[in-house]
């Protein structure tokens, strides 16, 4: 299963943080991790395992629980919950 971005009305990124304006008019400031994931899937659709590998490269492996893949799924669930990605 690959993950891809959905369209937003507007977005702005600075210092690794992104803020988006959604179709429903709400504005959402994303964490650096979520901003990074959104940027990755903006370039091309990716599988969660690929995303987890890229997150490990950039942010390092999470210490203890949760694992990188669990962290990735949590971020994806958040982004999906706000309608920013789809599978």
């Amino acid at each position: 299963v690959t993950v891809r971005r959905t369209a937003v009305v507007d977005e702005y990124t600075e210092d690794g943080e992104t803020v988006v304006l959604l179709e429903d008019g709400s504005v959402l400031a994303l964490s650096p991790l979520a901003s990074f994931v959104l940027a990755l899937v903006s370039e091309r659709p990716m599988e969660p395992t690929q995303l987890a590998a890229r997150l490990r490269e950039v942010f390092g492996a999470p210490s203890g629980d949760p694992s990188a893949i669990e962290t990735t799924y949590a971020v994806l669930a958040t982004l999906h919950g706000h309608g920013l990605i789809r599978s």
Partner: protein
Amino acid sequence: MPHASEQTASAGMPLRDHEVHLEALGVLVRIVTDGPAMTRALRAAWAACLVDDLRGRQPAVVLDGRVAMADSGGSLDGSIEILTQHVTGRAIGHHAGELLMLHACVLADPLTRRAIVMVGPSGVGKTTLARTLGKRWAYVTDETAAIDTDLSVLPYPKPLSLVRPGVGVKAQVAPSDLGLRVIEGPVEVRAVVLLSRVAGAADALVEKISTVPAIATLSEHVSYLARMPRPLTRLATLLHRTGGLRRITYSEWADVEPVVARLLDSRPVEGP
């Protein structure tokens, strides 16, 4: 929409007793009144925005004071409050998609024309700051900062809506009746602050907010955000050019005065 009686005097009353023209955020508004009492009340409250010489201009907005009177159950004060809300709402709507409009109190240094935009929800103290610090600097508005891309702000010296103890309807009071200075012509944004009022706070605490969370916070106070092209970038540009968003946590208005002085790089002027 106005009745047909807008265009013709009734009961032998001169036409001017039935209408008031004013400018709100550069928008010419005609209010058709229900008679001399409403006309007088509107002219008094909106004294700083009155337009007596139309110079051939046609109003962009026409409001019917008779409808406001009916909606207020026949209360003159209530109808003036309703009309004040409608004037602001229609003026803001007129600029939707064009100006960045923040729910804010704005004060300016009358000499340098530098302005501070103080953003915050209803009840945070915008009107109190306007009616107090507006005597020391100049009152630009207590409602909407309409900011153009060059950071200029159109003055909107509307009546201040003041709560009266034991009275459900707010009084609409002209800035001059409160001893406030008003300023003509555009002013320029020098600083943007987010107001946070905490009872008992000692002095005013000023904190910088980084750009992305600042945009998310400010967006809650922008009218017609999604109607603007690239609104988030517009907010970012405003913040970059004014030193970023600062949150002022305060308890008493007097504690805000030195902060305003510092951000405007000016000293308050004593006396009216």
